[in-house]
């Protein structure tokens, strides 16, 4: 996907600069962009390391376990195909907690582990069950305490209030998650019904035909 996207960016910008007569600006932009990327990385590094350090303290001091304990009843209700004490559920809780703390590097391996455990007990292994889908949707939402990359970018861009976005980010990401979960539940009920009906009529049709 990125192959196509990157190619598109370069071709479109070339064509567009021909159209707008900015071909000279474009040639300096490529070099300036590469330069800017390195400056950006350096400018972001401090804030990002600060927060990943703080979140590691949270993890080591057991705050993660407390969050996981609070979340586990909610997650169990959302993913009813797995027991609270199952390996799958433990990996799910650990993954969601890592996401909330913004530990991206820890969250992805835990998420993959959770998917593998869930797949082991999947009754129809060719397609994800409703719990697996819900889990992936949880991971496509971005509920986290500190959006540290964004804060770092804002700091690098000279913002006087890099953290002014915290409350809007919490509200928006939580709202998005709520809509995603609700949509998943409605769609799962619908596809479940369709499948049940399909089984019945399909069977009858076969027998009659």
């Amino acid at each position, binding site marked *: *996907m990125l192959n196509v996207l*990157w190619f598109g*960016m*370069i071709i*479109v*910008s*070339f064509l567009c600069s021909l*159209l*707008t007569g*900015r071909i000279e*600006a474009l040639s300096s*932009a490529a070099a300036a*962009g590469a330069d*800017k*990327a*390195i400056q950006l*990385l350096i400018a972001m*590094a401090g804030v990002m*390391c600060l*927060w*990943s*350090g*703080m979140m*590691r*303290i*949270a993890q*080591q*001091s057991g*705050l993660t376990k407390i969050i996981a304990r609070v979340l586990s009843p909610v997650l169990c209700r959302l993913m009813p195909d797995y027991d609270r004490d199952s390996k799958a559920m433990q990996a799910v809780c650990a993954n969601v907690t890592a996401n909330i703390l913004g530990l991206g590097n820890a969250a992805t391996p835990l998420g*993959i582990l959770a*998917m*593998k455990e869930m*797949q082991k007990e999947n009754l129809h292994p060719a*397609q*994800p069950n409703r719990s697996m*889908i819900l889990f*992936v949707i949880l*991971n*496509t*939402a971005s509920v986290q*305490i500190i959006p540290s*990359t*964004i804060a770092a*970018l*804002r700091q690098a*861009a000279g*913002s006087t209030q*890099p*953290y*002014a*976005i915290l409350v809007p*980010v919490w509200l*928006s*990401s939580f709202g*998005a998650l709520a809509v*995603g979960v609700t*949509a*998943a539940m409605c*769609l799962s009920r619908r*596809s479940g019904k369709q499948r049940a009906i399909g089984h019945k009529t399909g069977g009858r049709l076969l027998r009659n035909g």
Partner: protein
Amino acid sequence: MPVIMVGIVLFGIWRKTALFDSFAAGAKEGLVSLWSIAPSLIGLVVGVTMLEASGFFSLVSEWLSPICQWCGFPAELVPLGLMRPVTGSGSFAMLNTILEQYGADSFIGKAASVMAGSTETTFYAVTVYYGAVGLKKTRYTIPAAVLADMTGMLLAVGTVRWLS
């Protein structure tokens, strides 16, 4: 923000954690993750800077501004909204361009930050997680996730408008 820091440190002391060692280990992790995104960030910042210099973004927002005005969504944020679900580095590059152009503390700058902070790289996550267990069918994952992303983006503009 300082409240969160103090809270974490106090909790750490209370639980007798080796505060500074943990902090250093985590900060190192931060450097490692920056190092790992650096190559793709360089490539995508180049791409976004070229698009911006070519006048593409202003053309797109000009075309879209009638529709956007009608639904109250700033046209300047549409390219970021399209980029966000596909690539993390690309959307950070885009956010950086927006912050430079409009100012980090302007309405557009804040709304763009909230947009990028409250959604995820949906398509990437779907690919990684289903790919890890070899599932090709995703059933209704994409519609639900895209609906969530769109909600997040509209809420981002809405909440910034209400709260500032």
